[in-house]
């Protein structure tokens, strides 16, 4: 029997600002622009919104930020607030909004994020890991490098295979006029790129971008009543989490993505072979490689072979990050992947993948600490 929430909620509208370096813009002003654009896309009046869910900005942390957003939007929501799961937050909030809607806590929800780490501060990504700073243990890239090194040593994954992910995202970004980075990348370029924290090179690291994005969530029934032009059904969602210290994980090469996908795929009634296209959180190239394994697109340890030879590019077996992902479209964590998932279901991507199968979207936060999965399709 189908899950009761399969397709019950929809993404009715999507909106965003430009991506890249946006001096002079505050997170609140970018939020307003993205929400205005998402409401316009949905064809819904602001007064219909009674839920406002936000990811807090890393550049300017503020307590009760959700209420600042509500004020900027001129809204007094019934339900809302800020969640902190790092980059997994956006899909988790979309899931929470869908459950609130299903249970009568609100009817039309805005889920939004905006940040300016490019012109503001990116310190959140370079800080020390507590007491272990005495060992020189600093920064977010180092946490991913520690996991990548184990994967390489255990399974023979290579830097060139990580490079294949950067090449795919750059190709899709180059086709997307809205992408912050549109220059193509060759495997040779990737291999010539300098080490940041070995085994990760500069070209393995995502962009750091200013920008804002928003989606409008409501029930499928409500979308029909309001005459929403192109609502995209939410078929399934799930989450999974690790605890804090990366070093303490019994197995560095398996992540909470596995539990997250299992929940989402069960709700959606799909298996990996049903999925047409995937938007996989690519803060660093090792991340989508391991998500592909943990989601069951290939066996554990075979992610490196899976991504080679254009298999994850348009025309390949499973195209990923068809708007460029965090590596090329925008470093803004996560919502842009959801928006591209909506475009793939609507058929409006600049790297459209033919067919009518669902699109899976993966969000992930911290150093593979938090994971959330969304399955979109008709």
């Amino acid at each position: 029997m189908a899950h009761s929430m399969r397709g019950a909620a929809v993404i009715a509208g999507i909106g965003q600002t430009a991506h890249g370096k946006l001096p002079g813009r505050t997170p609140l002003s970018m939020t307003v622009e993205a929400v205005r654009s998402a409401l316009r896309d949905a064809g819904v009046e602001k007064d219909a919104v009674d839920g406002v869910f936000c990811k807090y900005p890393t550049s300017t942390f503020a307590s009760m930020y959700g209420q600042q957003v509500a004020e900027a939007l001129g809204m007094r929501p019934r339900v809302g607030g800020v969640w902190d799961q790092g980059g997994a937050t956006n899909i988790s909030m979309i899931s929470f909004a869908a459950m609130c809607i299903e249970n009568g806590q609100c009817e039309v929800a805005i889920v939004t994020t905006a940040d300016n780490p490019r012109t503001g501060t990116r310190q959140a990504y370079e800080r020390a890991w507590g007491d272990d700073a005495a060992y020189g243990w600093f920064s977010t890239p180092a946490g991913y490098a520690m996991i990548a090194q184990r994967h390489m040593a255990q399974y023979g994954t290579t830097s060139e295979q990580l490079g294949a992910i950067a090449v795919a995202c750059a190709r899709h970004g180059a086709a997307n006029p809205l992408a912050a980075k549109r220059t193509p990348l060759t495997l040779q370029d990737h291999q010539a790129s300098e080490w940041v924290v070995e085994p990760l090179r500069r070209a393995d690291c995502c962009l750091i971008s200013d920008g804002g994005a928003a989606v409008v969530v409501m029930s499928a029934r409500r979308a029909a009543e309001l005459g929403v032009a192109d609502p995209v059904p939410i078929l399934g969602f799930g989450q999974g989490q690790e605890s804090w210290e990366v070093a303490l994980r019994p197995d560095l090469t398996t992540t909470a993505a596995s539990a997250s996908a299992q929940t989402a795929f069960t709700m959606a009634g799909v298996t990996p072979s049903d999925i047409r296209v995937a938007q996989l959180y690519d803060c660093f190239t090792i991340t989508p490689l391991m998500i592909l394994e943990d989601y069951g697109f290939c066996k554990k340890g075979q992610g490196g072979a899976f991504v080679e030879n254009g298999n994850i590019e348009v025309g390949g077996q499973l195209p990923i990050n068809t708007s460029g992902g965090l590596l090329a479209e925008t470093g803004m964590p996560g919502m842009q992947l959801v928006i591209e998932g909506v475009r793939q279901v609507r058929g409006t991507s600049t790297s459209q993948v033919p067919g009518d199968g669902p699109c899976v979207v993966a969000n992930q936060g911290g150093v593979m600490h938090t994971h959330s999965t969304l399955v979109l399709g008709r």
Partner: protein
Amino acid sequence: MIGTNSQIDLPEPSPDLTRFRNRLSAGRLSFQRCDECHDAWLPPRDHCPHCLSPAFTWEDASGRARVVSWVVYHRAFHPAFADRVPYNVTVVELAEGPRLISNVVGISAADGLAIDTPLALAVETEGDVPVARFRLS
């Protein structure tokens, strides 16, 4: 003071971390073991993360350990490490089970490191803080 011109700001240590450091200064790498479920752990804390009991006993580790994974920093994220790049940070697992973040010293970058490479304790100091580093054994 270490490095070129900058001290590493470490968080104010908890009483358990202070205990750990005092023992380490005396050359003893220690960990905590639960009195109830006998789980062993690091980093120091005031309860067992397995059964949540507050009753535990400090034990000295043998100093034998193995490599779980490692990275090499090619740029410093803090001025104190500017003149040390390229340097490794390594996850090590003690023979007794607990894991910690550490450095393998006495090698260039990460030369000779692989999964399960055997290591031996080499206590050093970083400023006035004792640190549990390791050498190839």
